[in-house]
């Protein structure tokens, strides 16, 4: 029983990171009806930016802010240069183009920063907290990760429900024509979605870096986990993305704990396949059919 709880605890913070990545995917899907398979590539790239800034300044927060800024710029660039023009052509093209961006970013990162795996020291201890006579599989860094995730989710919720920009983004996502007829500059709202997703992804990248190391390909598996969570959550739902992001983290932690961590990708695949088979619209998804 204690091991079970330990495994669960161990999965919460990785689940939080998966949740953030899934959030980024959902943000873009909601606004643009594109699954951005380059999302982890962007996050990987901005994490390298953070790494560079951190080497220069030694400051974790400044590095995080730099990554967020880079994420915003990268999101905007990908949207304007690639997705906006492609969307008019075809949907297969949009999917393929995001993979083109992923490949380019990974190669560019390899060029700029080399292919070696780099470590990323956490700002606070990543060792288990000692409490009540035992060491828990839970560190102050996990607390930080979860805290940041919660803050972000609250912030996004407020943005979407309380602000004009948030309302414009939601309207643009649900019905671009009515949004335009209401005076909303829809293409700008879509761009905000990409910027926001880029920023959220950048935060996820910096947060995951201490546990997964940084290399051009080291986030690939995160893409699979995040996509799984986003799809199970319905692709449209921020709540769904967070819930199932954490859920996916817990399941993976349990499976890795009781068997072997190399099972994780297979588990994600099975979860994804089962979900798509049983519930073609996700758990939180509604209205929109999968025929997009």
């Amino acid at each position: 029983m204690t091991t079970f709880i330990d495994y669960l605890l161990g999965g919460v913070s990785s689940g939080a990171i998966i949740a953030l990545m899934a959030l980024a995917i959902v943000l873009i899907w909601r606004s643009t009806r594109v699954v951005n398979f380059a999302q982890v590539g962007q996050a990987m790239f901005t994490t390298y930016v953070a790494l560079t800034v951190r080497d220069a300044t030694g400051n974790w927060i400044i590095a995080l802010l730099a990554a967020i800024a880079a994420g915003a710029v990268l999101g905007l660039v990908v949207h304007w240069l690639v997705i906006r023009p492609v969307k008019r052509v075809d949907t297969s093209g949009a999917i393929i183009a995001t993979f083109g961006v992923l490949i380019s970013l990974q190669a560019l990162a390899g060029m700029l920063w080399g292919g070696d795996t780099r470590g990323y020291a956490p700002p606070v201890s990543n060792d288990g907290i000692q409490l009540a006579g035992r060491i828990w599989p839970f560190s102050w860094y996990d607390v930080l990760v979860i805290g940041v995730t919660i803050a972000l989710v609250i912030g996004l919720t407020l943005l979407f429900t309380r602000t004009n920009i948030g309302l414009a983004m939601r309207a643009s996502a649900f019905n671009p024509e009515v949004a335009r007829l209401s005076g909303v500059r829809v293409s700008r709202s879509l761009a905000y979605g990409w910027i926001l997703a880029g920023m959220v992804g950048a935060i996820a990248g910096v947060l995951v870096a201490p546990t997964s190391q940084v290399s051009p390909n080291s986030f690939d598996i995160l893409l699979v986990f995040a996509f799984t969570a986003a799809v199970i959550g319905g692709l449209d739902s921020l709540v769904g993305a967070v819930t199932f992001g954490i859920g996916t983290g817990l399941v993976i932690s349990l499976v890795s704990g009781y068997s072997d961590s190399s099972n994780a990708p297979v588990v994600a695949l099975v979860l994804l396949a089962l979900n798509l088979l049983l519930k073609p619209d996700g758990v939180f998804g509604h209205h929109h059919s999968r025929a997009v």
Partner: protein
Amino acid sequence: MHKLMMLPGSRLVQHAAIALAIWVALTRLNQSVDPLLSYYLALVGMYATAMFGMTILVGLSGQVSLGNGALMAVGGYAFALTSLNWKTVPILGLPWNAVWSVVFAGIFGILVGLVIGGLAARLKGPYLAGLTLGVAVGVPAIANRFPGLFGGENGLMLTVPYPQGGYDASAVDTGPADTGADAIPTEAPDLPTEQAPIGGESLAPSDLLTVDDLGGAVSSAAPSVAPSDLITPDDLMGATGAPIASMPAEPSALASAGTDLGSTASGGVDAGSVDVSAVGGLILEQWQATLSITMACIMGFVALNLVRSRQGRTWQAVRDDSIAAAVSGINPSRSKVSAFVVSSLFAALAGAVFAQLLTYVGPGAYGLGLSLSLLVGIVLGGRASLLGAIIGAVLLVWLPVVVDRLSADRGWPEPVTNNAPNLLYGLLVVLVVLLAPGGITGTIRQSLAPVLRRRD
């Protein structure tokens, strides 16, 4: 497959002639005794085989899949495991030979393709891409899960099936008096067994042979001997011990050569650096190229027939408008599954060839990078064109070579050299999708269209 029968006989002959002509030309090219060239030919053949399947799946049927690299792994592992472990054919009790391994690679490919395709047919666009992405990442991970069976991270070493005795430089000059050639008449394998899908066609390897009057022992003996002797690991060890050792010497380097996209991190990848001269016989690469070219030509023939059959038009009809297709009596999901299964067969056979080229199967060789490579190749060449698949295959092999050469001339630092091809691929994919969705072949066809029309 009954629909295939409706292809007029003249079409079949025409397609066979095309495939045969290409086969003859490539075989001749392969005779240049430049191991590097042969090695590239082998890679091109392997990629082309897999990408013919992509033409059908992505191009005709409109399903963007990232799983075909994983399906190649299925073929590669099936090939490796059956040839390493089975001495006789189960049920039939026949003595094992390498053709059976190829057949089983194909069968496993079809089975796994049925499972994934059955799931995938219900999905569209990003859901399908995401599921197959999961397949691309998840399936190779299975190898790690069962290290006892699949060899784990290190994979499984294979020996290259050599026709005995025929493969040193001198054999090229001395002609067909080698032991391998003896096998031709008696053991000429019935290759068409794995071509069941093309029904009724009669292009057996022996036919290829008789046409082949190129004279060289390698060229004539190779395609026929290849299947029969493909893998008999036991006697291979003895018969061709020295040359074989050369290839597994650097399986990882070769693996990354084949899966450039997955290995941005890896060190210098240069097929040329494999020191073949130390081995004495340069011919290993020629032999591998022969296998690969032969497979590509046979499967190219199959693909050509499929694409131009009624089934080909059915796939396109479902891609363009599945509702309209359903109204006109087509079952859209069956059409999608069949495209998936066919492309899985192609991928698995390519995977078997790939195992041959690397003399190794391992999760690293069949990773996400390989799947992405196939997608890149098909998009650049032209999504809905078999010629595009071939051009894409050539690009996948040729571009890194060019970059290497440039890098050597200009003295680029290593990270730049290693990543330049992928950066080019990524940017080209984006540009092609934006500016020329038809890829190279589509764009050429489009620009030629007015000219051709005027001639009518």
